[in-house]
């Protein structure tokens, strides 16, 4: 059983196809990462899943029920953390949690009790009665997250919840999200931070220009490159390149090529030292060769031809 199933979801704004036939699913106790650069279609996808936007085509199933057959029921199952800090600056952290708890359907007493629990879990008890406008960026992010958790949702949609905060605050939030997963919550997590997707998510979908280019576990995505290692060559590739080297494409897969750098992966399970020898024997003056484990960025590079960090 999946908590969330998205089937061929599409949305266009005028001539721009923001989301193009995207399909994936999120299971209980799983963090599914939707990784892509800004403008890839992550937020539009979350907006359609949470009912803020009506899809042009495709279906969303929440706990195996079509979202649009009973949107209110689906909304009770999910909690949504928007990318923006959708909280009230004039209210205290406690008041924000209580207010959004009431909006989620809790009674006044339950909302108060849940706010205390969340403040404790988010380590904000000592600042609970300060106005949110006096909080640091990280504290605001935590309250923003907490406001979606009042009703203990089974499915949590997190839209870049760590944008714009310092590394320590980010680690705190990521740790909190891990705890949520351990309690059985299914989480859809959008990010453009490779490290977050690599360390946090059980499965990752790579999205760009509205299309889901690949998905799988980190290992499965690395395997797409043909092994668990990639070679980075630094040389002058202006006048000489893989297309002119005989038999190169049978031995190596080009992940990225620029005038100064060539990233390749070996085809098949081959000895890295053999590969290194072959690369050093290429008809070009190699200045440096690096052997490394392929990252999600390398996968993204192979899929899109550009760096996720660009």
């Amino acid at each position: 059983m999946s908590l969330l199933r998205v089937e061929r979801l599409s949305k266009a704004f005028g001539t721009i196809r923001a989301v193009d036939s995207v399909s994936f699913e999120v299971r209980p106790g799983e963090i599914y990462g939707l990784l892509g650069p800004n403008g890839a279609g992550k937020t539009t996808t979350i907006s359609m899943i949470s009912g803020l936007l009506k899809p042009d085509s495709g279906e969303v199933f929440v706990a195996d029920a079509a979202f649009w057959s009973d949107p209110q029921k689906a909304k009770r199952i999910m909690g949504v953390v928007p990318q923006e800090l959708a909280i009230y600056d004039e209210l205290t952290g406690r008041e924000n949690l209580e207010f959004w708890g009431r909006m989620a359907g809790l009674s006044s007493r339950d909302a108060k009790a849940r706010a205390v629990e969340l403040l404790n879990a988010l380590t904000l008890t000592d600042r609970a009665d300060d106005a949110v406008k006096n909080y640091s960026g990280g504290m605001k992010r935590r309250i923003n997250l907490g406001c979606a958790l009042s009703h203990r949702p089974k499915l949590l949609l997190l839209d870049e919840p760590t944008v714009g905060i310092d590394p320590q605050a980010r680690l705190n939030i990521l740790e909190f999200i891990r705890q949520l997963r351990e309690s059985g919550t299914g989480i859809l997590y959008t990010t453009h931070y490779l490290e977050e997707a690599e360390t946090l998510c059980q499965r990752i979908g790579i999205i760009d220009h509205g299309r889901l280019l690949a998905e799988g576990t980190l290992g499965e995505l690395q395997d797409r490159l043909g092994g668990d290692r990639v070679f980075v060559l630094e040389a002058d590739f202006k006048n000489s390149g893989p297309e002119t080297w005989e038999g190169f494409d049978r031995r190596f897969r080009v992940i990225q090529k620029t005038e100064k750098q060539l990233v390749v992966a070996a085809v098949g399970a081959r000895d890295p030292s053999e590969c290194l020898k072959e690369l050093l024997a290429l008809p070009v003056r190699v200045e440096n060769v690096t052997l490394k484990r392929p990252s999600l960025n390398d996968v993204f590079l192979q899929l899109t031809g550009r760096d996720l960090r660009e």
Partner: protein
Amino acid sequence: MLRVLLAKDLRRAWRNPLPWLINLIVPLAMTALIGLVFGGKSDNGALGRIRFAVVDEDKSFVGDFLRRAATNEKATKNFEAVFLERDEALRQINAGKISAVVIIPTNFTRNYLTASQPVSLELIKNPAESIHPAVIEELLGAAVTALNALSRNFLSDYPAWKAVLDGDADSHQASRLFERAGDKLKAAKATLYPPLVTYERGKKADAAESKGGKPKADDASFIFAYMLVGMSAMFLLFLGNNAMTDLHRELRKRTFERYQTMHEQVWPFIVSKVVFTVVVLLICSAAMLGGGGLIFRVHWQHPLPLLALTLGYAGFVAALFAVLVALIPDERRAGALNTMVGMGLGMAGGCAFPRQQLPAFLREHVTPLMPTDWFVETLRNLQSGGAGVEWRFVLLKTLMVSAVLIGLAAMLFRRRFKTGLRA
């Protein structure tokens, strides 16, 4: 849920009171300012006695005539004329003790009667006052008109009149002069009486006058009430716009969107914002109509209909601006349009100018459709008498329009959210 949403908005307003205090202070300041400008009333709410000085540098019978006229019982009810030297009169006007100074210059009477050269009276108005000096100016204008009329009809007899008044003529000359004047007045009677144009007091005023029990609003009080109602209706439009910008903020901060991730229906959110705006408008109305009433000594003749109509009107204003937010979610772009809409509704609805002074097309085809007109006209009619004013029907109409506007705002927001609303 409405209660929770409203409590949230009120708490936010309480925590950040400055914008709301400004909202409250502006109408209060405007009311006080107008009170100062149109100041000078007595405690009973009327204009009070107008104190002015006469400087008689002519020392002729005209001055004596003015002195006698100004001290008769009828005149002293409304005017207090003091006869001073020029320096003292100027000192008193500078000190704000008198409203105006009328100066009869040297040789005024002689020049007038001999028509040897143009004559003029001098009027100095107290710039710190508005109505009292204007009344003196009006009176002086009437006196000048009368003097001109006399001059045109009796110019040929002026030397003889001067001789009689100076005591240089004998009784025969005087009697002939009176006889000629009598003949001229007799001839003029045919053209003066019966008058071609007359006026009579309106029935509404008569009805108000004859109505027993309740105190009748005096003319000055009615003018201020008339102005205050129009001004308040206009201000409530601007204040409603200001209060509803909170909905823009909710869009910008994505809190409205967050609410939508929890609830399918948007109308509770819109209604809560309308109720919040109505609360703000009612507080401002109390400041304007209540505070203004105290300043101008306006006795509101029908407080319950006044309250009910203000409530209905506040609902209309809030719902209208909720629709405008739905139409133009961008706060900066909406600002200019909302101000124009407010101005247009105020002007065309007879808030700024009396309905009778509006262009015929507006007056006949547009103004009657405006809830602003329903509000101000009904309140003005109630204040000027109230007999037969169907305020309950007007209230019902206004509430119905408000409900339709709230529904329209909810529908527009729903549609815009589904297609990707961004503030």
